[in-house]
């Protein structure tokens, strides 16, 4: 497209060299993709139809994994619990995007100290998740955590102190709180950049018209940064089906199965000693079948809203 056509047609040795160049530049990237993306994903479909004997290593082809999935989905509560938690995680991410949007708008409106806030809020994105989850666990630790110590000093009976991560009803909400706590920085940067790119004339106009801050945010800013915002909204589905490192580091799925998410169920099978990989692949596929249409539908809806806004 950008090449000079005269070179391309006349000189065959040059063309030959160019072919070698193109092939050698693409060989490694394409090979890596074929093995670690294409092959892996095709193989996970195949694996879901396999059962491997641990003693002999013999592969038998079977539908066993799928019948197991439907049996456990209908008869045992834990898969449904995981689906419910994942759904909540997606909604939680929506809340995160909205909070970040409002914070980004404060920054855009030149709140004092914003350059410091921006850096501080971004800290969790550059410090290892291992450190931040540990820190979060310490805060809510029942023996050395500041929160329970302060509650005790305020006169709460030791027996009434919340068990936080030890409580089946509190553990998952705490993971959600963690996601909100550390998640704003990245979103603020991206949404903030979209706001900075808005044409000045529009903002001048709303200033002259005396439009209130919240009306300005909802009626002018949101429609104008819709393309960026809808990418962030689409991320909610990604979070729904991929949230698991936080679960793994904060609770390990417990107490009980109360903090299972779908991705945690699939991925914890890989790290565990049981490692029933075929079962993991089957669950993963079943959830992908749920996730893929959700992404497509949400994308359609977001595009429709965008058209309405005239983006």
């Amino acid at each position, binding site marked *: 497209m950008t090449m000079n056509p005269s070179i391309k047609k006349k000189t065959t040795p040059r063309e030959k060299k160019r072919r070698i160049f193109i092939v050698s530049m693409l060989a490694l990237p394409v090979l890596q993709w074929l093995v670690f993306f294409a092959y892996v994903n095709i193989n996970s479909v195949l694996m879901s139809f396999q059962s491997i004997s641990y003693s002999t290593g013999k592969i038998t082809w079977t539908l066993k994994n799928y019948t197991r999935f439907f049996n456990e989905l209908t008869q045992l509560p834990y898969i449904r619990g995981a689906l419910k938690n994942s759904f909540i995680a997606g909604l939680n991410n929506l809340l995160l995007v909205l909070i970040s949007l409002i914070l980004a708008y404060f920054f855009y409106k030149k709140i004092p100290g914003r350059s410091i806030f921006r850096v501080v809020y971004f800290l969790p994105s550059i410090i290892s998740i291992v450190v931040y989850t540990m820190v979060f666990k310490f805060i809510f630790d029942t023996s050395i955590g500041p929160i329970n110590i302060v509650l005790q000093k305020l006169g709460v009976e030791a027996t009434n102190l919340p068990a936080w991560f030890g409580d089946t009803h509190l553990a998952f909400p705490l993971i959600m709180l963690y996601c909100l706590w550390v998640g704003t920085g990245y979103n603020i940067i991206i949404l903030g950049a979209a706001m900075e790119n808005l044409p000045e004339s529009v903002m001048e106009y709303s200033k002259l018209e005396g439009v209130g801050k919240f009306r300005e945010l909802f009626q002018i800013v949101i429609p104008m940064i819709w393309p960026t915002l809808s990418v962030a909204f689409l991320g909610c589905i990604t979070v729904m089906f991929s949230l698991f490192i936080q679960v793994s580091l904060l609770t390990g799925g417990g107490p009980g199965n109360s903090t299972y998410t779908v991705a945690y169920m699939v991925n914890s099978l890989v790290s565990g000693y049981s490692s029933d990989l075929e079962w993991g*692949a089957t669950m993963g596929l079943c959830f992908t079948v749920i996730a893929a249409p959700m992404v497509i539908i949400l994308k359609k809806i977001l595009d429709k809203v965008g058209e309405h806004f005239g983006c």
Partner: protein
Amino acid sequence: MKARRKFDKSMILPFIICTVYALTLVYPFVYLLIGSFNTPLNFISDPLGIPKEFQLQNFKDVLFRLDEITYDENLSLAKMFLNSITLSVGLTLISMALQSMGAYVLAKYDFRGNKAIYLTIIIASMIPTVGSLPATMRLMTSAHLTNTYIGMLCLQSGAFGGCFLYLHAYFKSISWSYAEVAMIDGASDFSVFTRIMVPLAGKAIKTYGIICFLGFWNDYWLPSLFYNEHPTLAVGLTYIQTYATSQANYPLLFAAMITIIVPVLILFACFQKQLLGSVAEGGLKE
């Protein structure tokens, strides 16, 4: 804050909210820092108190004797640091090189199959795959790639993820006329790429490189699955946590956490502007 404007009263409540939120993000590190100078016993008896005397023993232990204390020779700070550095630098260099190569050829050369490759990549990256990890594990173990450096490189040096699209767009925006002039002077396709195009895209490659590097440096999950015999700092820290909590030696763990985040904070302080700028840019082009 350069041009100080008239104080806006409607910003008082937002300012308070923002300040409180910022404090919650910073306070835990103050708690860690104070605790890291304490002795284990004093800390347990009064976790929120100021230590009676500030001692540096925990930091000395973390820096020089971590392997002795935990009875695990892999957990010496120097070794973990070396693992983290070699892994994240190697991965960053290789994946940036492959990404630039792939993005450049697809952006600048018109050949049969170009569109097909590009579309396949785009469509494949849009399918949300929940469970490819079990099959990845199967591949890594059957190819004996687990716990090998080369295995980590193969697994994570994908050229068509992460910043491929941005680099593709960037190379597309560079004018081809530089290359034409060089080619008339007899430069080969390869030297046009290395001598002209890469330097021209240098800024973009550098900033995405920093983002890549931080991602690899902080990564926990893949190294913990496929490289756990050579613990990186992030992975090693979880082992230290297991040891420290079993011994109720929290100050040691705190000192380890502080030691581990300091290099990252220094790096962030140096590249703060570039980093935030490139994150913003990446988000806009999506």
